[in-house]
């Protein structure tokens, strides 16, 4: 099995959008999973967390912002960066997303290059976090330090 560049969960009620996004991201070397409903997305995440979540806002039953609220309330999942995909690029949605700790907004239709740049930027922050964990382990005990 080859290493993927990152694991991505796509949550969007439009199967056509999911299919195109999946194809686009897999071609770029990402491993994708997908869900057509918010609740299904949350279930997948609880079983097997991912590196980035691409989340549509306008969905039936549970919309993207409600999914964000649930993610935020879950200690395990609250750290996963969420990129909100929305055709509703109004300030209200953005403002609510901002308060819910969303990492990025992408306005539909999504530009391929912009999508990759934003995902890479989130993965870069995670790489920094891993480097910091290594640094943390290397900090000498003050009592024994020179």
């Amino acid at each position, binding site marked *: 099995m080859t290493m993927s560049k990152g694991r991505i969960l796509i949550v969007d009620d439009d199967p*056509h*959008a999911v299919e*195109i*996004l999946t*194809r*686009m991201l897999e*071609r770029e070397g990402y491993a994708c999973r997908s869900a057509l409903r918010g609740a299904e997305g949350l279930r997948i995440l609880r079983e097997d967390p991912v590196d980035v979540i691409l989340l549509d806002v306008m969905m039936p039953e549970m919309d993207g912002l409600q999914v964000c609220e649930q993610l935020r309330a879950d200690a395990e999942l609250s*750290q996963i960066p969420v990129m909100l995909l929305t055709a509703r*690029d109004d*300030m209200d949605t*953005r*403002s609510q997303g*901002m308060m819910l*700790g*969303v*990492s*990025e*907004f992408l*306005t*539909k*239709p*999504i*530009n*391929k*290059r*912009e999508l990759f*740049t934003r995902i890479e*930027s*989130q993965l*870069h*922050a995670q790489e*920094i*976090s891993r*480097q*910091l*964990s290594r*640094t*943390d382990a*290397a*900090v*000498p005990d*003050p009592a024994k*330090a*020179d």
Partner: protein
Amino acid sequence: MGTSADNVFIRGSHPVMQKILSISKRVAPTDSTVLLMGESGTGKELLARFIHRESRREPNPFIAVNCGAIPPDLLEAEVFGHEKGAFTGAVNSRMGLFQLANGGTIFLDEIGEMLPALQVKLLRVLQEREIRPVGAERTVHIDVRVIAATNRDLATEVEKGRFREDLFYRLQVIPIVVPPLRERRSDIPALVTHFLEKHNQQRPSQPAQVSPDAMVHLWEYDWPGNVRELENLIERMVILSEDGVIDVDALPANVRSFISDKKIPRPQLTEEGINLNQAVEEFEHRLIDEALRRTKGNKQAAARLLGLKRTTLVAKLRRKETQSGAPEGLVY
């Protein structure tokens, strides 16, 4: 500078910033050399000051040196000092910054700019804890903690032979990478609030406030100058605001138009160079995408927006589709 309020600059609720602060607190009481890496304006010097303040060296000096700002031929004498008559113009002997920082911390910013000849001397300081002023016969023992910083990728500089490998490893005993602000957007609202409070002290009778829509624009902007750029902007807006309300139209054009403009990012000419034809093509593709987005896919209207004939636009789209493998590079 250096007040506890400035910690907000480096603090933040983003998990990466919390990790950085926790590491900094733990590393402060040790004398380990620290290497801070990150883009310009991310708060590396404030972090270095924080580490100094949290250490036993706090009562002693914190000396910051920008290795990139001092002419290379003067840097050695500036850092290590010189004897009388060491070079033309050295009429007296003078202590260097390492000696002035004795007992405290020296912050060597833009360490990647240091020339190899001086890198060797710095390596000796780190190994032997002694310096030799320019023109001096003897070395002088010093007790200084070194914190270095760079906005360059030092590992690449080492690979290219521009930075000494042994010095690199000596410096990065404790490497700390500070992320750019665009990778931790969730900290922007708290930073904005903090800088508003700080600069509102200049207008106590009518403190300025940022409107919710303006906050969204500040949140979405990519901040190439990082936290420093954000603070400068807030300061300017607080001073310039007449009625104390900072709304979207008070924001500079680059921030205001970013939400639509970020679809067409500015190409960067890196040291490795770029392929101009490809960059021009990408730029063209993005403008076409944007025109189609605005016209909801109406090719006639999009062509008009771009000053093209419809047939020319269709031909460009066909070409683009073959190249990108996805219909018009967009997901609907």
